[in-house]
């Protein structure tokens, strides 16, 4: 077995899902004995078989990756409950193993993945999706880039054909439930943590939080960072459409059109809304110079 073959063999074994009680499986999906597989490349010692030694790594892998995703989605965990949450994370990670050197990105595909997986909470699927979207937006806002904001002079030069760039940390969400309250309630209970080099011995469970009741009611949120803290700001639908159109690369004139197409607001009301939206956004530094490529 050369180095590459050994690494492929071991990675496959280490990343194979555990049994429901967090042990190494006795056989692979095509029926091969994992005892035999382990013995083929790992030496036993006087206390541990090859299987036992491989199992240490197999368990550590899952505790670490489940832990990393769980830390980013504590409110999803609070809505689902620990057991369902663990099986959801496990199913997600089986299909989306890490492809990045950092654990930071491990949960990035969870909100999208969850869209086609209503089975974990059939009755509250829409709510769960909103919670997942907001929690991932928090991660992006927490450490996204913060570029030089536009100055008053820059604003003076703007016209309908101008592009207008938004801060990379700014996340815009169109949600069906007012989940900002729920997510805030859960996040207040969870401590931040870091990437470390030590072994993981257990699956740490978050404390249970009392969740506020959720009634369907559409909201639009701007999740952004201001002086190194992340804030959820509710914005009106027109402001959301305007900012979203800009974020999608539309020129200012097109974005304004998108914001008010089909709107029942009078021209004065529209002008007032635009004024208000720009004033807030500029005050919070949301508009920035083009991203360097």
């Amino acid at each position, binding site marked *: 077995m050369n180095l590459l073959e050994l690494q492929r063999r071991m*990675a496959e074994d280490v990343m194979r899902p555990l049994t429901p009680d967090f042990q190494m499986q006795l056989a692979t999906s095509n029926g091969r004995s994992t005892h035999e597989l382990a013995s083929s490349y790992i*030496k036993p010692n006087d206390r541990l078989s090859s299987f036992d030694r491989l199992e240490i790594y197999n368990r550590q892998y899952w505790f670490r990756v489940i832990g990393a995703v769980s830390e980013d989605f504590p409110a999803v965990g609070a809505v689902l409950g620990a057991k369902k949450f663990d099986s959801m994370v496990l199913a997600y990670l089986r299909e989306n193993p890490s492809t990045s*050197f950092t654990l930071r990105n491990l949960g990035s595909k969870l909100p999208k993945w969850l869209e086609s997986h209503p089975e974990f909470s059939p009755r509250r699927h829409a709510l769960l999706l909103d919670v997942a979207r907001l929690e991932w937006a928090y991660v992006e806002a927490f450490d*996204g880039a*913060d570029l030089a904001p536009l100055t008053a002079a820059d604003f003076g030069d703007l016209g309908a054909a101008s592009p207008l760039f938004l801060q990379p940390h700014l996340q815009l969400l169109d949600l069906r439930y007012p989940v900002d309250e729920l997510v805030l309630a859960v996040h207040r209970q969870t401590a931040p943590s870091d990437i470390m*080099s030590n072994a993981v011995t257990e699956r740490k469970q978050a404390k249970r939080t009392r969740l506020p009741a959720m009634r369907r009611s559409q909201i639009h949120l701007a999740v952004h960072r201001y002086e190194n803290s992340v804030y959820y700001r509710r914005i009106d639908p027109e402001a959301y459409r305007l900012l979203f159109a800009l974020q999608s690369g539309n020129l200012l004139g097109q974005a304004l059109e998108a914001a008010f197409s089909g709107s029942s607001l009078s021209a004065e009301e529209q002008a007032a809304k635009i004024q208000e939206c720009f004033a807030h956004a500029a005050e919070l530094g949301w508009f920035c110079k083009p991203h360097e490529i």
Partner: protein
Amino acid sequence: MPANRFNGFSDYGVGIGLRVPHYDHIFAEKPVVDWFEIISENYMVDGGRALKVLDQILERYRVVQHGVSMYFGSTQPADREHLKRLKTLTRRTKTPWLSDHLCWGSVDGRYTHDLLPMPYTFEAVKATAARIREVQDFLEIPIAVENVSSYAEFHESQMTEWEFLNEVVEAADCGILLDVNNIYVSSQNHGFNPFDYVNSVPAERVAQIHIAGHSKFEKYILDTHDHPVLDSVWHLYARAIERVGPTATLLEWDDNIPSFDEVHSEALKATQYLTPTEVLIPSNSAVQESAREVVHS
């Protein structure tokens, strides 16, 4: 010995890891700490609080970068994005040297996020050393590779772990971050004498030392970094210092993290080993004496 080309000819003493639960204490009390070790990956982000905190720390303290995801032993090519971000961070911290582990952890673009043990083969020596050289050339700062703790050994291995370490660092011409706790953990898990390991390390290449606590289970020992340093690890540390000379030393405490003062005072126990008793008695070698003074300044 302690200031050598593998740690940028620096003279660092006892440091501790920079950890989130200690931020408030550090900023409020401004404790005297010789240096902090940071986990690079926690600061390889585009913006936000982590970088702000780091900049504040850098105003007052010396920082050394330690990584957990370079995977020198992985057969896949180095990740350019990773290297670029790391280099940007080294410019920010001005770390005199940079460490990561002598292990692998990814294959075919998939990451295990674990520090997996190497098969101790000549093929692995060659591949790993080539990768270390590549990273060292790209980052343009000295690299120190850390021995990991392990729970498995491979049939493929052709040499001992310390022979492998020696072969790799010679071939790569790089430094060593000697983790004496990892040596102890592996010695218990694999049944070798940890002093054989410490005694065989090329002393002139040791850039830094790690000490840490670990957890003993019924049949194996796990490198959990959640306890004070055990006596047996202090003994190994004493022997390492005897061979290597006073060297930048860092206590790792990553889980069940106690107060800043508790972690720092545990780390400072290392000072007694770093301050050779001969310094206290008149020495007939002025050269030796002044060399030591430089070390402890």
